[in-house]
Structure formats: structure tokens, C-alpha cells
């Protein structure tokens, strides 16, 4: 969810987000009561025309850390952000 919010917050055109590729790496289990921090980093932007419209592929890497500062998961998502009005 943090990844989608980060993708939506990148300045530029495009009002619709679709996750097209995801890699989830789980490093440690989560337990009830854990507190998590998520930090999302925009790794790359590539403009491209696709069959559902013109837009850009954004790669966002989100790292999830627990209250002990252990990395519990790293999520790398390729998001297609495009303008819904251009969809045909």
C-alpha cells in the first residue's frame, strides 16, 4: 500500500496506477504487536506507450522495518502510471 501511495505522489501526469511486476522478499516473520515503518524509494522512471495508454513505468522499492530495526521485507514494484482519459 505504501508503494502505491509513493507512486501516486511522484510529480507528473497520469491519474491511474497498475502494478505490473512485483518482487516480495521476506526476511523475518511479523508478530502481533510489531510496529512497522515503511520507506519507499523511487528507483527509476521510463516513459512508454502501451495498449492501455501512454504513461510511464515507475520502479519503487519499499523497505519494511520492525521496532527492532530489523528489515522484515523488501518489496520492489513496477508501476504503470498512465492517464485514464487516454485509454481506448
Amino acid at each position, binding site marked *: *500500500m505504501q508503494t*502505491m501511495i509513493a507512486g501516486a505522489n511522484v510529480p507528473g501526469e497520469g491519474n*491511474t*496506477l*497498475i*502494478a*505490473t*511486476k*512485483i*518482487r*516480495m*522478499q*521476506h526476511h*523475518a*516473520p511479523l508478530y502481533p504487536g510489531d510496529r512497522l515503518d515503511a520507506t519507499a524509494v523511487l528507483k527509476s522512471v521510463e516513459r512508454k506507450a502501451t*495498449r*492501455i*495508454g501512454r504513461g510511464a513505468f515507475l520502479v519503487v522499492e519499499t523497505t519494511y522495518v520492525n521496532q527492532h530495526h530489523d528489515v522484515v521485507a523488501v518489496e520492489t*514494484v513496477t508501476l504503470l502510471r498512465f492517464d*485514464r482519459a487516454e*485509454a*481506448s
Partner: protein
Amino acid sequence: VRASRAYEDVQVGESLSPFTVPLTLQRMIMEAGANRDFTPTHSDPAAARAVGAPAVFAGATMVETLLEAGIRTWAGLAPRIAVMEYAMRDFTCAGDVVTVTGTVTGKGQHDGKPSAELEVWIESVRGRTMIGSAVVVFAEFRSGD
């Protein structure tokens, strides 16, 4: 709950036991509610069509849930899914009857623990709509793990 698969019994090249489920619109909406992902394309047919999909389509958590169900139909509940990766080839839609299956592509070590590498996919009348891979670790949890 069926017994979990033993690592010694895992064979490279074997097929994963298929997991099949009808993706009804009700199921999609229940899943969106359960994970609080109210992106309209995952519950509203008109919003899904507006982005070029034929119907409401599965979001990332639904896809991961389906892939995990497929992996656990074969592996059981004890093994741990360390890595899951997938790419969208087409929309996975409400109304589709989907089957999740795959093959074992390798055995080895992941972070020093016995592991199996899998190729996994979701298929329906649309073909293979999601293709991916996973690393499953066969090790007991320890306290504080």
C-alpha cells in the same frame, strides 16, 4: 489441514498440485474489504472497464493470495515463502475460473536453510495471466526467528 511436504520428498521437475477457484465478483470485493484496498478497479466493474480491463481485476494482494494458495496446496502450511515474484501478462478478472500451479525448478539453500525454487503461474481461459517464481524455505521456526 494436510501434512506439510517434507524437503527430502521435493523433486526438481515435479508439478505443483493445482489450486482452482472461481473468481466471483463477491470474492473480489470481500478480498478488497479484507485488505482495505479500495482501488476502484478491484471492486467496481465500470472503473475496471475505464482502464481497459474486461472486468474487475485482481490487485497485488489478491494475486499474492492466489499464488500462496497454490504454493501451499503443494507445500502445506509449515514451509516459509521467502521470495515471491510475478509479472502481469493480462488481467486476472472476476468471472474467471483460475488455476494456480507451477513446477519445481531447483533445490538449494536460502540464507543457509534448505529451500526449493518454484516457477508459478495463474492460468484461465485468458491463458497465463500472471507468471512468476518463488523461493520456499523448509525450516522450523525458532523463537525469536
